């Protein structure tokens, strides 16, 4: 027997053994679990998704407009007024394009667009100027890349639901109101979520949910330090 013939025979035996093993271990009532295995997205699949993202507001810190006090008129700096700044909660839209490298790993790139409001509460004026909240609406774009680890061992919904963990980094670009000034920054993010696929073909639709946190520096609302921003997202997804 020559080499290729030996290989073909061995492969036939191996396939038969694996098939027998599956038939022996899968209960008859679990026919729906045909999704497990080859119907889990696999290497080479492409996923496109789009949806909405909600980000809660976050504090940017307080500050005092201070003047140097004349010695003998009190202690500490003279506070002219105080500020308390925050970025208000915002809803954005996002789109992502991903490629599965294997059943467990995919990479994706995406963009998130939102228009958060930057507000600064002005209080405690030394000459009793009325308190006021100064505002500005930012136009924010985050372009990012992520690696997703699909937890194929803990699927749910009859195999339609597949959790994942994700981590990545992004570029942040904020355009201030009137579009006169742009400020950039970067972010690191990690989180998790799940896909829930409908259908079983190569082309199939699904939904996707993400939760995560983004550690950002730079950008228009970088008033004091870096900040950590949580987010929740829901998307429609299509796999092909």
């Amino acid at each position, binding site marked *: 027997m020559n080499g290729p013939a030996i290989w073909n025979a061995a492969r036939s035996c191996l396939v038969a053994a694996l098939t027998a093993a599956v038939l022996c271990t899968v209960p008859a009532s679990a026919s729906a679990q045909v999704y497990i295995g080859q119907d889990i997205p696999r290497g080479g699949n492409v996923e496109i998704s789009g949806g909405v993202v909600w980000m809660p507001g976050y504090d940017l810190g307080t*500050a*005092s*407009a*201070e*003047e*140097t*006090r*004349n*010695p*003998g*008129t*009190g202690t500490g*700096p*003279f506070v*002219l*007024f105080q*500020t308390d*700044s925050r970025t208000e909660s915002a809803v954005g839209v996002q789109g992502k394009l991903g490629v599965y490298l294997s059943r467990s790993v995919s990479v994706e790139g995406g963009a998130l667009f939102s228009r958060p409001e*930057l*507000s*600064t509460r*002005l209080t405690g*004026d*030394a*000459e*009793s*100027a*009325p308190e*006021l*909240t*100064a*505002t*500005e609406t930012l136009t924010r774009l985050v372009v990012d890349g992520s690696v997703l680890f699909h937890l194929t061992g803990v699927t749910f919904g009859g195999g339609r639901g597949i959790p994942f963990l994700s981590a990545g980094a992004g570029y942040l670009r904020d355009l*201030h*109101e*009137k579009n*006169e*000034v742009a*400020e950039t920054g970067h972010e690191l993010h990690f989180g998790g979520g799940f896909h829930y696929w409908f259908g079983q073909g190569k082309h199939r639709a699904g939904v996707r949910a993400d939760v995560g946190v983004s550690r950002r520096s730079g950008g*228009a609302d*970088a*008033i*004091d330090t870096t900040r950590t921003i949580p987010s929740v997202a829901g998307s429609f997804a299509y796999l092909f």
Partner: protein
Amino acid sequence: MRRLLAIGLAVAMAATCQVPAFAYLKLGTRVGTRTVTLKWSQLPIRYFITDRGTAGVTSTQLQQAVQAAFATWDGATTAQVSSQFVGFVQNNPTSGDGATTIGFQNRPDLDRTLGATSFMIDTVSGAIVESDIFFNTAFPWSVSAQGETGFFDLQSIAVHEIGHLHGLAHSAMGETELRAGGRRVLAAEAVMFPVAFASGTTLGRTLKADDLAGIGDIYPSTSYTRGTGSISGKVTKSGKGVLGAHVVAFDLRSHALVGGFTLSDDGAFVIAGLTPGPHVLRVEPLDDGDIESFFDATLNIDINFRPQFYEKTVVVPEGGGTSGVELKVVAK
């Protein structure tokens, strides 16, 4: 041939008369039909020291204090200015002799004036050709590094007067309070505030953001031109411009305070020398002090409005400006 004009006692620093508010202001002069900023066209500024001391301060100590004060301004990264001590002279610091001279003079008649600066200007170009500063020996002076109780710090007052010598007018970046017998300054955030701190302190030796913006506006360095921006707009009341309103910009990142005044009847203002980024704006009237410390007495300065903030955050671009801000104030 240049025609020269003397401006006597253009600015002074009173001990007890003060005005609250904020902002730098530049000195200007009329040349023909236009107003030009007073500034030196030739650098370094060459100056002489009157070879005469006063109680507790020798002429050499005077020269050292003045040199340190010049160095403070020369070191401002926002500006390109320089100075050179030429030598001691016997002349008093008086205008018209062609030499920029700094020294002590006994002026008991000026009982609220610690020092004053005068100018000789070229009426064709508006350039400063001579400027003289005197320190009033009617007051006690000190050159102690830590300050001396009961004595005014000569270097601090020299920093203020040399700011004038460069072309800066008074800043209103400070606060005062009414007390029996007059006002007293509570705080200031500019060495160009017209009222001195109490005797015994050396706090006036250090330039503040408002001073740095002001000197950069007159003698801009490359970093000033490229690295800072401006906010411009107008202050209105019932649809009409407000003259002499005082607008301050507070940098939400650096916490610097820099200001400007409305200088025309339409209420227009420009605040330059701001670090890029988000700012909040506040406007107030010059309503409780000596308006003549800032403006010509013939101007109709409007002080009948309430202090207030601007409802928008204003972002300053690097090397550019944000315009179109309108602060609408209401009468008291």
